[in-house]
C-alpha cells in the first residue's frame, strides 16, 4: 500500500475486490490497525479472528452488512499494537498467539500466559517465558471481601468432560466470580499442520474439536478450494450440507437432553441420547462413520449416498422428529424444569454483540448472525431456512434455540435430499497450488473460522482455526455471576463450549 494518508476503518474493508473466498485482503499500517481495533470496540466490525502468520499479525473482520476483510500488519521487531487493550474479546487470542509465536502485543492488559502452562519442553526457539519460570504460580484474579471462599474445579472433572480449570469464588451459595483457566488440551495444531499435504492437514483439522468434525472439515475444504480455485461438483456440495446438518441435529438433541439431565429430568435425557444413537447409526450406515469424520475433503466428499441411504435418512428423520417433538412438549409442560432454566445464567445482549458470540449463545442473546445465511456458501445459498433468535439470554433461551434449529435443520436436509442429482462427488483435478483462502462454516455451537496458506508445492505453510468457543468461554464467566454454584453445570451445559477446539 502507498504511504499516503491513513485510511478510515470502513475504507479498509470495502476497498478493493474480495478474493475468491469473499475476503478483502489488505496490508495496514499500525495506525490503521489501531483504527480497526477501535472500530471493533465501537461495533462497526465483529472481530472474527486474530492470528500470527510469519512476520504478520492478522485480523479477520466482519462488517455490519457482512462484508469480510483480513487486515495484515507487519510486526517489526516481533511486536504489534495490542487489539485487546482497545477491544477486550481479543485479549485471550493475543495471549495465546504470544505463547505460541513469541510475538508481543504491546499494551496487552493481561500479561499472564494462556496456552503455555510452563511445562512445554521445547518452545521452538523462543525465549523462556514467565510461565516457565513460575509454573506453579498462575495468578488468578484477586477477589476481596468478607465471607468469600474459593472452589477450584478441574482440570479433571467429575463427569465425562474435557479438561479445564474453573476457579469459583463464592459467597455462601452465590458465585461472585468465575475465572477459567484453559489450554490443557493444547495439541499444537498449527505446528502439526505446517508442511503437511492438504489431505493430511484435513485429517488433523477434522480433529480440532471432534464434535464439530464436519464443520471443521467443511471450512478447511472451502478455504483450500478458494486458495487453489477448485470447483466442487454440485452433488458433493449437497452431500456436505446433509452431513453438516446431521451433525448439528445430533448435537443439539444431545445438548437439549443434557440440559434437562442437569435439572434432573433424566427421562428426557435418556430419550435424547437414544435419538442421537439412532442418528449416529444412520450416519454409519449411510456414510460409513458414526461421526462422519474425514467424509468432507478438499475437492468434494469421501462418501456417496445411494437410494437406500436416502430412504434411510428420510426414515430416521421422521422417526426422530416425532420423538423429539414429544420430548420438547414435556419440557414445555413441566414447570419444575423451567423453574431451573428460565432466568438462570443470563447473558446480556450487549456482551454477545461485543464478543461476536456465535451459535446458540449469541442467538439466545439477540445476536442475529448465522454464517450459513450471512456469509452465504454452498449449498445454503440456494436454500430456504430461518435463523431463530431470542432476546432472553438465559439457559431456557439457549435450549429453545437448539430446538428451533433442529427443526430448521431437518427441513434443510429434506430440501437437500430432494435436490440430489447424479454426478461425481470429487473434483477431478484438485492439484493444490500456492495460494491463500479462508472460510467460515457454521458448526452446531457457532461459526468456525479457518484460514490456510499453501506453498508452491501445494503443502500447508500455515493454518489457523478459530473455534466459536473463543468468544463464548469468556461470556460464561459473566453469565454465571450471581447464580448459585449448583447451577454452574447447567449454565455450562447450555453454553457447551469446546475445550479442545479452544485449546488448539
Amino acid at each position, binding site marked *: 500500500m502507498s504511504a499516503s494518508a491513513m485510511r478510515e476503518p470502513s475504507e479498509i474493508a470495502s476497498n478493493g475486490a474480495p478474493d475468491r473466498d469473499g475476503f478483502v485482503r489488505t496490508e495496514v499500517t499500525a495506525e490503521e490497525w489501531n483504527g480497526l481495533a477501535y472500530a471493533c470496540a465501537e461495533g462497526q466490525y465483529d472481530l472474527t479472528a486474530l492470528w500470527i502468520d510469519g512476520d504478520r499479525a492478522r485480523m479477520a473482520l466482519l462488517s455490519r452488512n457482512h462484508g469480510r476483510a483480513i487486515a495484515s500488519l507487519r510486526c517489526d521487531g516481533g511486536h504489534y499494537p495490542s487489539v485487546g487493550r482497545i477491544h477486550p474479546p481479543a485479549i485471550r487470542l493475543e495471549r495465546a498467539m504470544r505463547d505460541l509465536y513469541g510475538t508481543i502485543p504491546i499494551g496487552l492488559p493481561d500479561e499472564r500466559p494462556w*496456552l503455555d*502452562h510452563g*511445562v*512445554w*519442553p*521445547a518452545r*521452538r526457539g523462543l525465549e523462556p517465558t514467565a510461565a516457565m519460570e513460575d509454573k506453579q504460580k498462575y495468578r488468578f484474579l484477586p477477589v476481596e471481601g468478607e465471607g468469600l471462599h474459593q472452589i477450584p474445579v478441574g*482440570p*479433571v472433572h*467429575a*463427569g*465425562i*468432560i*474435557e*479438561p479445564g480449570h474453573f476457579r469459583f469464588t463464592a459467597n455462601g451459595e452465590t458465585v461472585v466470580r468465575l475465572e477459567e483457566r484453559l*489450554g*490443557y*488440551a*493444547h*495439541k*499444537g495444531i498449527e*505446528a*502439526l499442520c505446517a508442511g503437511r499435504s492438504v489431505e493430511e492437514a484435513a*485429517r*488433523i483439522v477434522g*480433529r*480440532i*474439536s*471432534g*464434535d464439530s*468434525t464436519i464443520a471443521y472439515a467443511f471450512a478447511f475444504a472451502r478455504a483450500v478450494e478458494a486458495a487453489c480455485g477448485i470447483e466442487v461438483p454440485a452433488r458433493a456440495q449437497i452431500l456436505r450440507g446433509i452431513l453438516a446438518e446431521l451433525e448439528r441435529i445430533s448435537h443439539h438433541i444431545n445438548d437439549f437432553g443434557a440440559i434437562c439431565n442437569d435439572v434432573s*429430568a433424566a*427421562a*428426557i435425557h*435418556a*430419550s435424547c*441420547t*437414544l435419538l*442421537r*444413537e*439412532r442418528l*449416529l*447409526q444412520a450416519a*454409519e*450406515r449411510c456414510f460409513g462413520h*458414526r*461421526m462422519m*469424520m474425514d467424509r468432507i475433503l478438499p475437492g468434494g466428499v469421501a462418501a456417496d449416498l445411494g437410494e437406500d441411504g436416502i430412504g434411510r435418512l428420510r426414515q430416521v428423520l421422521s422417526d426422530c422428529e416425532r420423538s423429539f417433538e*414429544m*420430548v420438547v412438549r*414435556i419440557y414445555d*409442560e*413441566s414447570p419444575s424444569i423451567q423453574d431451573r432454566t428460565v432466568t438462570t445464567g443470563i447473558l446480556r445482549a450487549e456482551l454477545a454483540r461485543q464478543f461476536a458470540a456465535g451459535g446458540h449463545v449469541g442467538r439466545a442473546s439477540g445476536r442475529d448472525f448465522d454464517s450459513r445465511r450471512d456469509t452465504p456458501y454452498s449449498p445454503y445459498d440456494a436454500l430456504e431456512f430461518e435463523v431463530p433468535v431470542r432476546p432472553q439470554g438465559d439457559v431456557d433461551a439457549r435450549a429453545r434455540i437448539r430446538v428451533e434449529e433442529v427443526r430448521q435443520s431437518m427441513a434443510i436436509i429434506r430440501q437437500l435430499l430432494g435436490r440430489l442429482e447424479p454426478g461425481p462427488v470429487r473434483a477431478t483435478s484438485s492439484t493444490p497450488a500456492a495460494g491463500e483462502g479462508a472460510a467460515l462454516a457454521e458448526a452446531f455451537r457457532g461459526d468456525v473460522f479457518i484460514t490456510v496458506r499453501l506453498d508452491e508445492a501445494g503443502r500447508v505453510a500455515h493454518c489457523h482455526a478459530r473455534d466459536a468457543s473463543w468468544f463464548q468461554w469468556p461470556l460464561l464467566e459473566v453469565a454465571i455471576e450471581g447464580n448459585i454454584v449448583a447451577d454452574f453445570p447447567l449454565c455450562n451445559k447450555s453454553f457447551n463450549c*469446546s*475445550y*479442545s477446539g479452544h*485449546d488448539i
Partner: protein
Amino acid sequence: MYKLLFQALLEGTAVTDPPADSPDMLAEAARALAERARRRLGRSLAIREVDAGSCNGCELEIHALNNPVYDVERFGLKFVASPRHADVLLVTGPVTWNMKEALERTYAATSEPKWVAAAGDCAMNCGVFAGSPACVGPVSAVIPVDVHIPGCPPPPLELLRGLLTLVDGTTGEPIRKTSR
C-alpha cells in the same frame, strides 16, 4: 412427563438394530463382560474417565455407552466421579504436556488394585497428533496401560469389548495388579 414414562413402559426395552456384521455381538459382549466383572470384582467395575487431551470425539462415544441402547450400568459398569472410587481409569487423548501432571496425579489418587484402559488411537499412538511438540506421547508414556482400545473414535461396542478384554486379562492369566 407421565406420557413419556407410560410410553416407555409400553415400548419395553430400548433396542437397536444389531451391527450388520454380527447380530448378537452386543448382547454377547455385554453378558460376557457382566459375568467376568462379577467374577473378578464382585458386582461392579467402577470407571473413572480421564480426558488427557483428546479432541472430545472419544468422550462422545463413551457417553454413548450410557444411552439406553448400550446402557452399561445394567452390567455393573459404572462411571464414577472420583478416582478414589475407581477400579479402572479410562484415558483418552494423546497426553498433552499441559495434562501430564493431572493424569499422573489422578493415577496416584486411584486406589489399588487399579487398571488403565487407553481408549482411542490417540491414547494408543497419538493418532493424527503424533509428532506434536505439545504432546508427551501416548498414555503408556505416562502411566502403565493394561489395555488399548483402538478406533478414531472407538464406537461403543468396541469400548465395551475393550473393557471385556481388560476384565478378562490380556493373556488369559489373572489380571496383574499394577504397581507403581
